[in-house]
């Protein structure tokens, strides 16, 4: 076996999640879809003149879909979420749920704003193939097979997440976020407070911070936090650190710009479904800690 093959196998093994934790995530995600469903119903109540689908398959629609079609989509979303929740035909129902979420979101995003919830919509597809139906599911009761999860699909999911973040980082570099003369984060906060449409709890406080070093640091830190994941994904302990930084970053964005990324907890969780003592295996401090543990329990 080549070094590359061995490396990919090591990556897959390092990302392979615990099947029971994954089963709990499946139930929690399906419950989230049921309790906080994407609302499609309002699109049937606004004029067609506002309908401008983004380039792609949704652009095949020339008018807002009829109310019965929207209702069918809404019901299909709920029914599939129930099937995913109980773990019935999990790979198929999870894939179908992703399709419904992508199509439904596409219609909702045809009003001049594409929200960036694609990872949430694709999550059932990815985690269905990782094996989130392997335990705590009807499938498990029927088949009595060994509960297995696939770390290689987690690697592909990690690449997807890292790539998504990279697409947020590089345009910032191209539009002057690195320039010492510009305070881009501050510009966005000030603009949002001025527009007053949607501001976070800390927005007013943040605008009062006249600290150039702080604002420039925020610009650079944002680009780093989003950009380095595309490399870190090939070293699982660093990727996990990167995701923890991203989680903190999302909290900061919520408090200042009121953009809610809490559903991304579902997106990141699968990378932490192993024993916490193995999260950072490969990093020197983790090695020392584990070596220390061995010394402690050795006679």
């Amino acid at each position, binding site marked *: *076996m080549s070094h*590359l*093959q061995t490396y*990919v*196998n090591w990556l*897959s*093994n390092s990302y*392979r999640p615990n099947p029971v934790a994954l089963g709990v995530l499946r139930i929690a995600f399906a419950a989230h879809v049921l309790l906080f469903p994407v*609302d499609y119903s*309002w699109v049937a*109540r*606004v*004029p067609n*003149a*506002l309908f*401008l689908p*983004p*380039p*792609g398959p949704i652009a095949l629609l020339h008018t807002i879909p009829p109310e019965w079609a929207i209702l069918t989509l809404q019901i299909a979303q709920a029914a599939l979420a129930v099937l995913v929740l109980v773990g019935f035909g999990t790979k198929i129902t999870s894939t179908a749920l992703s399709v419904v979420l*992508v199509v439904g979101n*596409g219609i*909702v*995003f045809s*009003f*001049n*704003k*594409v*929200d*960036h919830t*694609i*990872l949430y919509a*694709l999550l059932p597809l990815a985690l269905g193939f990782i094996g989130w139906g392997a335990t705590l599911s009807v499938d498990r009761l029927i088949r009595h097979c060994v509960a297995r999860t*696939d*770390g*290689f699909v987690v*690697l*592909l999911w990690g*690449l997807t997440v890292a*790539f*998504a973040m990279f*697409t*947020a980082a590089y345009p*910032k570099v*191209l*539009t*002057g976020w690195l*320039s010492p003369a*510009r*305070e*881009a984060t501050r*510009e*966005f906060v*000030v*603009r949002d407070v*001025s*527009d007053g*449409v949607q501001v976070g709890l800390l927005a007013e406080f943040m*605008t009062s911070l*006249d600290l150039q070093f702080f604002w420039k640091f925020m610009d650079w830190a944002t680009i780093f936090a989003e950009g380095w994941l595309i490399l870190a994904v090939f070293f699982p302990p660093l990727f996990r650190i990167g995701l923890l930084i991203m989680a903190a970053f999302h909290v900061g964005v919520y408090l200042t710009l009121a*953009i809610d990324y809490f559903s991304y907890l579902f997106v990141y969780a699968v990378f932490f479904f192993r024993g916490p003592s193995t999260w950072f295996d490969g990093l020197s401090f983790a090695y020392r800690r584990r070596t220390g543990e061995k010394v402690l329990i050795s006679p």
Partner: protein
Amino acid sequence: MQSPDEVAQRPNTANRRLVALAVFILFLGAQLAWSLLSDREPYPVVKMPAFALQAETEGTVLSRPQLTTITYEDGTVITPAVRELMGEDFRYSAVGPSYDYAFRPENNAGGKGALSDPEMISWLSSRAQVLNEKSEVVSMEFCWKDTRLDIATGQPVSTQPCEIMRLDF
């Protein structure tokens, strides 16, 4: 039955994984290329928000507030927030962009655009009645003015006169 580790060690599995990884990376690259070549953001693509406006004049930022004035038959004049005008059930993130798309002067040039669409006019009339049930709506004005803000204070440093889009019912 072989364990997952044993399956992974099989040369065929390892080869398949390498090919799948390469194809997947190519797929991600291809959809990024699609995104870059499109004049508007395509969907569905794996993408996150860029917050990438071009650099502003040093120390200031341009804002274009959304100001609506509705006049009723009984003389009542109201200035609803964008969210009030568009409706509480309108998706929150689409409210501002839809308002811009429908009511900006450049999108209604030459008498073409949302403001000359009968369905839109009827909808705006019904929205105006929801905001004030006591009197019939007479007109609606959308004021567009570029405002430059100081990023240190958040206060306007310069404001252009309104460019008004007017709709008489």
